[in-house]
């Protein structure tokens, strides 16, 4: 696929996205609401297909964000799906680990540090926090001091 074909392919999930940004030539950001994240991820990983790199959880402005980073190595592109979770009280998003086992750890990690629930995750137990870390304290949330 060349650049244009990749963009055409990505435009197939246009209806699930809020916006598409391309700040530099080989970096694309796809913005979506968390409800559409599962379908969009499945399309990116299985249909395009892109290589999964990792996900980033962020306590953003008024909402949580999960950035799913993918690579299209033939062109050296990094495609990032930026999903917004608006519900700060009970933040949740559908897990992508059932079809992408490489995402199992990072979802557990984001659950640990930001307290986001990954629905239908096969094994959402603690990964990085110590056993005696108190329940309900999420170290990367903004209210936790540096």
């Amino acid at each position: 696929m060349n650049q244009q074909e990749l963009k055409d392919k990505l435009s197939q999930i246009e209806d699930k996205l809020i916006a598409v940004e391309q700040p530099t030539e080989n970096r694309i950001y796809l913005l979506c609401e968390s409800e559409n994240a599962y379908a969009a991820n499945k399309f990116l990983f299985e249909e395009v297909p892109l290589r999964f790199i990792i996900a980033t959880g962020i306590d953003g402005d008024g909402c949580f964000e999960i950035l799913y980073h993918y690579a299209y190595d033939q062109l050296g592109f990094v495609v990032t799906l930026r999903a917004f979770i608006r519900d700060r009280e009970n933040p949740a998003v559908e897990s992508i680990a059932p079809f992408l086992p490489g995402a199992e750890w990072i979802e557990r990690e984001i659950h640990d540090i930001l307290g986001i629930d990954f629905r239908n995750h096969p094994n959402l137990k603690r990964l990085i926090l110590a056993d005696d870390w108190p329940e309900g304290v999420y170290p990367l949330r903004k209210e936790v001091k540096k």
Partner: protein
Amino acid sequence: MKKTVKKPVLAVGPFHPLQEEMEFFQLTLDGEIVTDIDVRISYNHRGIEKISETLQFDQVPFLVSRICGICSASHPLAYVNAVEEIAGVKAPERAQYVRTIIAELERIHSHVLWVGLAGHFIGYDTVFMWAWKYREPVLDLLEAITGNRNNYGNVKVGGCREDIPDELKPRILKDMDTLEKKIEMLTKAVLDDPVLHARLKGVGILSNADAIRYAVTGPTARGSGVDIDVRRDDPYAAYAELDWKVIVQPEGDVFAKAVVRLLETLESVKIVRQAVRKLPDGPIAVEVREIPPGQGCGHGEAPRGETFHYVRSDGGNRPVRHKIRAPSYVNVPSFRASCIGQHVADVTITLAAVDPCYSCTERVAVVDQNNKFVHDYDSLLKLSREKTAKLRKEFGLPGIKMEDLEIG
């Protein structure tokens, strides 16, 4: 009536007896065959992503070079790739070459280290002795360039901190010639050894499909026929201007990963040699005053695979979020695909074949909430002494008798 059968669980860890790092594998066994594996990590958290948010952009390279002593060129390089993307700056050409040389010297010493350890793990200590001996001059070169054998601290946003002096060039070239011969000898010794073929071929296979599903990277992916290498796919530093090739093996077993690493070491020697010969004149850094608001994805090919850094800036002098993904973080979970169904005796080398690095894997965690030390040196020492005393009492361990020694 339902019948339940108890299956033995073999605990390897939390302090791994062979790899000498903190990780905990629980292998469920059916006779000699591994039927399940559970990995526990996070015994060694340092909270680097959180600490990074408290540091200024130009302080972060020192922090991320301490993620892992061995990958201490790759992490800062991926980080500055991300920040330079936000700021829209490009380091001068000479800096790109210096970065390449240091990154490749790092790959050489890391791969050779692995070859030695892999030999040691399967009881072939000659390989271990050879490999570590040949690795030593590479560390000396790194010390001569950066002042440190590891933790080079050479990369900064906009360029490099130390230059490669011209008088060092002949020494680098000479050492590369010597090293190349030794690595060729080592490669032949490994690739032609029928015992190693018997021991490593067909062991711990990670199939191509599983390599993609588990999103593995680096030699672990290339050993399973996944043709990826950030140096070629999304070129940074000076890789696009040099002649080298990506080594890919389709088999997916431990032997394939060994072949990939050994041949890659020879490619790295080629890269270093070309980069030293082509090293352009000019400055090694440009001044970067401000980092504008924005986000950047930087990645680079560390010895163990792709290291990925995501940085977000709000226009201040510190990153508001800095996500780091070290290669072992995706390589280690692939054990579920490569170890289940294997003999327990083959698991050790299968686990070692991805060259796992736990200090890489465990970079996220928590500084004490109120910014206080939970334990300082003295209290840790006290805890340790109390524990030893307790064990001694419980198990009746002998105390060590100390006698006064007269000197002089």
